[in-house]
């Protein structure tokens, strides 16, 4: 068994596509129309055959209160790995991305948390 797809619940797929590609730098892999929504996945340019990130609509009534509760407590929805967290932090800040936590050394890992503008906080981590 392999982890092929993981997902984030986004409030707007088109807006999410722009943020995750233009700001974060991921690239689109699959874009399949499925009724009102799309099966829309991204991969890292560093690993085109790697795990896909599904930009999944947060239309279920339970999804938005859940997301809001996570955001209020500063809890990231998922986490991405970076080679140089300070460089990523500087780059994303310059691109207008809002952080709720700048890079902080948490023992063996340094983490930071930003807002994906689609209703989620996302953590980046450098081992």
């Amino acid at each position, binding site marked *: 068994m392999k982890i092929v797809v993981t997902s984030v619940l986004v409030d707007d797929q088109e807006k999410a596509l722009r943020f995750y590609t233009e700001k974060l730098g991921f690239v689109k892999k699959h874009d399949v129309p499925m009724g009102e929504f799309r099966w829309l996945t991204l991969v890292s340019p560093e690993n085109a055959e790697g795990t896909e990130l599904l930009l999944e609509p947060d239309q279920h009534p339970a999804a938005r209160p859940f997301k*809001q509760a996570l*955001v209020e*407590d*500063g809890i990231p929805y998922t986490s991405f790995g970076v080679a140089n967290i300070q460089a990523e932090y500087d780059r994303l800040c310059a691109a207008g991305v809002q952080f709720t936590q700048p890079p*902080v050394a*948490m*023992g063996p890992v340094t983490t930071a*948390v930003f807002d994906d503008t689609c209703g989620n906080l996302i953590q980046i981590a450098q081992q």
Partner: protein
Amino acid sequence: MADLFEALVAPARRAILDELCERDGQTLFEICARLAMKHGLNHTRQAISQHLDVLEAAGLISTRREGRYKFHDLNKAPLSAIVDRWLKPGRKGEGS
């Protein structure tokens, strides 16, 4: 003053103050992560939330909402009561 000492009695609450001293304006998530990763304190999020309530009741932290986020700030002012009571000669302390 009794509330102040009650707030400071728990090691986890002192660790929270240590971490807010390092950087003000933390989310609950960041405080939990710092306690777990830097202090080996693996309390539940609910337990840490309760510690924060005690610290807030003692006036040692305050919470602030910015948009959809909630941040915790350190407030050192109540600690001056300790200085006034024992470290400033000739000055009478207050409370018990």
